[in-house]
């Protein structure tokens, strides 16, 4: 997959069954029961496949956990007879994740995209009074402990694209890590005369 295939996601999440992000060839696969109590364990199973050189592994774990949590909570509605299926792969500079639930799909996606656009407008203008109405996305299925903010961070974090399938019960995400130029240390440029 090349960088030209990236789909920008900061303007919203697209629906595209044909996205290369749904290609599962060469990816690891795991099924999980819909049990939120084990969310950290599920996530660690995935993250342990990441290269030891990966920066910000805590953040990667957190972001993967949010996607699986959404599948359990909003997709499978905590029904333990329903599974969450996950495909994942890592290279030196990329993390990919596909998560599928057995639910009816994210039907509020268009409303969420509009919500995100307005939220981003408020942020760009630094209009925090207005932004107060756009900090948490709520749907008829939101519970009290649902922060309503996980996907806002996801579209920023997964900078290689965030895509739903037509049925909206499968999400694919790609994160590209910045490469550090070889031979240039973190202190490069400092202390030079």
């Amino acid at each position, binding site marked *: 997959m090349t960088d030209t295939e990236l789909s920008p996601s900061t303007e919203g999440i697209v629906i595209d069954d044909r996205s290369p992000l749904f290609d599962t060839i060469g990816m690891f696969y795991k099924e999980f029961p819909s049990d939120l109590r084990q969310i950290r364990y599920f996530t660690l199973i995935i993250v342990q496949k990441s290269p030891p050189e990966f920066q910000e592994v805590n953040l990667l774990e*957190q972001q993967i956990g*949010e996607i699986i949590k959404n599948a359990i909570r909003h997709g499978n509605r905590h029904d333990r007879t329903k599974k969450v299926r996950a495909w994942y792969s890592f290279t030196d500079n990329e993390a990919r994740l596909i998560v599928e639930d057995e639910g009816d799909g994210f039907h509020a996606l268009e409303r969420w995209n509009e919500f995100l656009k307005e939220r981003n407008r408020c942020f760009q203008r630094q209009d925090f009074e207005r932004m107060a109405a756009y*900090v*948490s996305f709520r749907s008829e299925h939101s519970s009290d402990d*649902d*922060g*309503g903010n996980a996907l806002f961070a996801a579209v920023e*974090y997964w900078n290689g694209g965030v895509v739903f399938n037509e049925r909206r019960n499968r999400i694919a995400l790609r994160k590209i890590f910045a490469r550090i130029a070889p031979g240039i240390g973190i202190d490069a440029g400092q202390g030079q005369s």
Partner: protein
Amino acid sequence: MELHKRTSGSVHIIDVKGDLDLFNSHKLKESVNELVASNIGGLILNFGQVDYIDSSGVGVLIYSNSLLKSNRTFFHIVQLHGSVRRVIELTKLIGFLPITDTEDAALKQIHGAR
């Protein structure tokens, strides 16, 4: 996750320690509710010992900010670091939430505003 409460004059400080997630963020919410109900002079949440936060934890920060704002009570979140700060940045809540680098700076701001 552990919550340790202390005071600096009329300002209450909660030291949050551990991971703030779906299973325990309600405890922080309850503590904030209790303090706000007791008419405090200000609240500082010290996140110096928090290395993990999920969307539920972020939700409690948003809730606390809204509650204290409507109550016209000084509110600061201090010592955000590492992946916790990154999550707040990714969620674009820097600027929206009252984030201050250190507890001393937060106390100075509160006392200076009076």
